């Protein structure tokens, strides 16, 4: 299992995920999530304009891009927290168009938030228990009769404790989540998401504000998800982390997918280097997406 403080050995990368050349919108052998023609406009601003993208199953996909590229908006659209102006998207072959967020979650597509949403005035254990789906005691009438849900609740507690132990939060289970540090809240949110037994986990900046020691254990947790058969899609700015654990990288800029590929190749892509990795930080983003043509400078 994971949780070793020392970096685990080089993770096994999944390869051969795509069909044909790695280009924006390339088809995958076994996509779990397919989005097509997704467009979201806020007034005159087009925040997301994704022509086609597929997320490979049982792999770790990183979604990278500069600030304001539309990554979080794209997350919101895929998970039903926002609805696009146009476009179709499906999860496991089932269309998600117009499906409200809680139903998306019930289908096994669970997301976390960039700004951590630990439920501060609930205990860590209550936070975890909330993640479990299909609880009898959550129905109004049966909640009045403890005999109907006590046993299930005890089982959920065992499962939650097991997860908390893996995330090294077991000693904190009686504390209010508000008393946790920022990094611990990230861990709690991830652990809570896992309580739902998801098939696709979407993590929005799981490493933001997490100290380096904790980062390593978070990385191991994410790698662990893959070995357990889950699919991971995450937004991240930390390139070392992306290189380390991602099997596939999707690069967004100005709402569009501008590059896709295995991490090592994608990071050699001049468009990505220009847009994101900072070798030419003074270059206008428009030049990368092809919206503006810059005059030759040198």
């Amino acid at each position, binding site marked *: 299992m994971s949780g070793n403080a020392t970096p685990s050995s080089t993770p096994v990368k999944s390869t051969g995920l795509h069909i044909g050349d790695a280009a924006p919108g390339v088809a995958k052998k076994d996509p779990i999530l397919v989005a097509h023609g997704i467009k979201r406009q806020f007034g005159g601003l087009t925040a997301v304009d994704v022509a086609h993208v597929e997320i490979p199953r049982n792999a770790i996909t990183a979604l990278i891009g500069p600030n304001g590229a539309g990554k979080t908006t794209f997350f919101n659209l895929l998970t039903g927290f926002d609805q696009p102006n146009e476009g179709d998207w499906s999860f496991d072959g089932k269309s998600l168009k117009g499906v409200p967020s809680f139903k998306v979650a019930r289908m096994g597509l*669970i997301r976390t938030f960039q700004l951590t*949403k630990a439920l501060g*005035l*609930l205990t860590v254990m209550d936070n975890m228990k*909330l993640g479990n789906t299909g*609880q009898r005691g959550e129905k109004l009438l049966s909640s009045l009769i*403890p005999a109907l849900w006590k046993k299930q609740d005890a089982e959920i507690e065992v499962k939650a404790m097991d997860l908390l132990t893996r995330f090294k939060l077991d000693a904190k289970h009686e504390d209010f989540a508000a008393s946790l540090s920022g990094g611990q809240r990230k861990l709690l949110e991830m652990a809570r998401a896992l309580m739902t037994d998801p098939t696709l986990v979407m993590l929005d900046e799981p490493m933001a504000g997490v100290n380096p020691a904790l980062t390593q254990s978070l990385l191991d947790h994410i790698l662990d998800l893959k070995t357990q058969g889950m699919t991971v899609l995450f937004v991240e700015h930390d390139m070392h982390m992306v290189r380390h654990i991602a099997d596939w990288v999707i690069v967004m800029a100005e709402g569009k997918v501008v590059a896709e590929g295995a991490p090592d190749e994608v990071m050699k892509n001049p468009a990505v280097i220009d847009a994101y990795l900072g070798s030419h930080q003074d270059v206008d983003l428009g030049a990368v997406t092809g919206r503006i043509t810059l005059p030759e400078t040198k």
Partner: protein
Amino acid sequence: MDFLGILNSTAGFILAPVTIAYALAALGLAVHFGFAGLLNMGMAGFMALGAYGYAIGILSFGLPWYLAALVGLGAAVIFALILGIPTLRLRGDYLAIVTIASAEILRLLFLTKVFDEYTGSADGLFSYNGEFQESNPIPAGTYGFPPFEDTAAMWWVRIVGIIILAVATFAVWRLVNSPWGRVLKGIREDEDAIRSLGKNVFTYKMQALIIGGVLGAMGGLVLAMSSNVNQGQYVTSLTFFIWTALLLGGAATVFGPLVGSLIFWVLQAFLGLLFPALAEQGLLFGLSSIQAAQIKFIIVGVALVLIVVFRPQGIFGNKKELTFVR
């Protein structure tokens, strides 16, 4: 100054129907605000529906008293649905605005001459309690000892009120300590987080709005059983009094609203008698006793401010569990 007499009258409020009514309404508000985070500023409207539903059910439709009581509670359910469907999708503050307005609309509908035949408009409704009192098993007469001395009729109201309160308190206690209550508290903290875990937030909020509303209607019902029904009772300040009682006891607690209502009424009665008595003695800078009787409302306002600033969790609340400032 008859200080003993004041204390005596004050003590009488410990078991008064009005205290029980406030306790029920404050319990409903605890479900709304303390557990679900719904800022309901229209509790007076729910109470009015309980009272008017009961009285109109008996007077206009000739229903037996217990069916008429159910009419009042049913009206609260319908009101909650009408209120909730458009507003529960909005952010919390909007619910407060809509509920305060809706409660006033309801009250003005009870006041208008148009429905005089049913609502009695400004006169209100009275002499509908005959059949309820016929069901009273206590033989006529006066019972108890001072200050808890009253007629059989009033004791019957108290007994029914306390039974309703006990059942309601037990039910709410069961609810908030169940997984259902856990989801509700989660919604109070962050709706989106709960949505992302696959729970239908709207349904939970609607259920909470209905349950709290029905508890408020039960409060109105107990009030109606103890006296007559008049729209003048169900003004916005009633809502604020209920809020004071709730915050005094502790918003996110089950027993806080009960104790809060008790303290609120005992204090109200005490100050309401003390200040006029002091004024009569000429101890209040020349205020007349009628003017002095209003001082208690100033005190209520100041008390509410002090509670919210210095003890937002109330008497029973856990300091960590509910703070207004995050």
